[in-house]
């Protein structure tokens, strides 16, 4: 595999999307071949996921499988061919997101790991670690209308979306902590300023990936 795969993980509100976006801008402005893909964004699978969520049709297993289908579609049609073509592929959420969310919904952790075993592991994964209360504060102050599944309402934790979201995110956070112990991603202290975090992220990427080989050969 000629390409390089970089993934970011973390709670909603941890700032990971901002960070990976800045990585993308940095790499492309420096003249590298780079592609960014986001969780749950496959066009083909989207209508099924939306229908399932809207009509509340999903069980823990179908929730897991439909997100894996979405992942696989992006993986087989974009990520893998781009890696083979020598791109740097950036993933806003990768398999750990599924490991954490599906485990919270009651799926067997080993079954979920096997499910995603077709995907190559990322060359570098950053976990943006933010204390639960801070992450909750960011989401709950900025976007008070929580979506049903986002708040984990399907788990029947509480009839109050905000309370449900708190409990759900707390469980996700604990799963992420287990994942950090199991897979040792790069943990970034997400309480730091955006600039400070980005500096750290760029530093680590430069150290671990030979960026020179991902430059466009033809100058545009």
């Amino acid at each position, binding site marked *: 595999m000629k390409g390089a795969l970089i993934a970011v993980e973390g709670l909603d509100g941890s700032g990971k999307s901002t960070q990976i976006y800045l990585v993308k801008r940095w790499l492309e402005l420096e003249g590298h071949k780079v592609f960014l893909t986001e969780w749950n964004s496959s066009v083909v*699978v989207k209508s099924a996921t939306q229908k399932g969520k809207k009509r509340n049709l999903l069980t823990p*297993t179908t929730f897991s499988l*439909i997100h894996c*289908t979405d992942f696989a579609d992006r993986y*087989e*049609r974009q990520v893998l061919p781009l890696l083979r073509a020598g791109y740097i592929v950036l993933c806003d959420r990768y398999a750990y997101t599924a490991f954490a969310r599906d485990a919270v919904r009651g799926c067997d952790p080993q079954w979920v790991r096997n499910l995603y075993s077709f995907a190559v592991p990322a060359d570098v994964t950053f976990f943006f670690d933010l204390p639960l209360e801070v992450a909750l504060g960011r989401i709950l102050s900025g976007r008070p209308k929580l979506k049903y599944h986002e708040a984990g309402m399907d788990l029947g934790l509480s009839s109050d979306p905000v309370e449900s979201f708190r409990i759900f995110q707390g469980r996700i956070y604990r799963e992420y902590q287990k994942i950090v112990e199991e897979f040792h991603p790069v943990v970034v202290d997400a309480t730091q300023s955006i600039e400070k975090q980005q500096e750290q992220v760029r530093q680590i990427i430069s150290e671990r990936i030979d960026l020179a080989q991902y430059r466009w050969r033809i100058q545009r």
Partner: protein
Amino acid sequence: MSPRKFYGTPPPGADPDSLGGKLIVIEGADGSGRSTQIAILNNWLEQNGHATVQVGLRRSTLVSAELEQAKKGNVLARITMSLFYATDFADQLDNIILPALRAGFVVLADRYVYTLMARALVRGCDRPWLESLYGLAVVPDVVFYLKVSPQLLVERNFQKNDCLDYWESGMDIGLSPDMFESFMKYQRLIEREFARMQEQYGFQVIDGNRTVRAIAADLQKRMESVL
């Protein structure tokens, strides 16, 4: 009631101890007479006082429409396609098969995970990966595999439709640019996978080259020991 077995890890909430009923699977290629036999079997079961429910591929509320769409467009790669079908299966498992078994129904499955696995294997998917994925499937009480020669399958397919089906001919995997040849090759590959699974999963092989009546009588006789 002894707890129901699953091939691997049961899905969350399955509660194997609560599952009674019967799960009857009929496997076989398109044109093997599956649907006809299921209709006859269903009548026979209801006549004998059994409550039945039927499941089959691409019948889930969740993704059947999207799968139809994807089939037409031919845009999904093999792992994605497998997972899409697995979603369709899991939706029916969680919402129809398991609740029906819990309520003591006889569930008639027009194909099951074996077809899904065979199709994926022929397309190069990883066997242990598929076995783990479909570990969520409940083990049926019986699996009847209607085995029909490829020659007869071709005839029946032409009888039913005007042409061979793109997917049942495996045209997506490029076995041959000639549709007839591709169909024959593809059906043989699928048959080979079924032969491999036969022992592992304990299929009862039914000679599907006989008349509708003869097959139906055979199935009913076998059903008596299942019920």
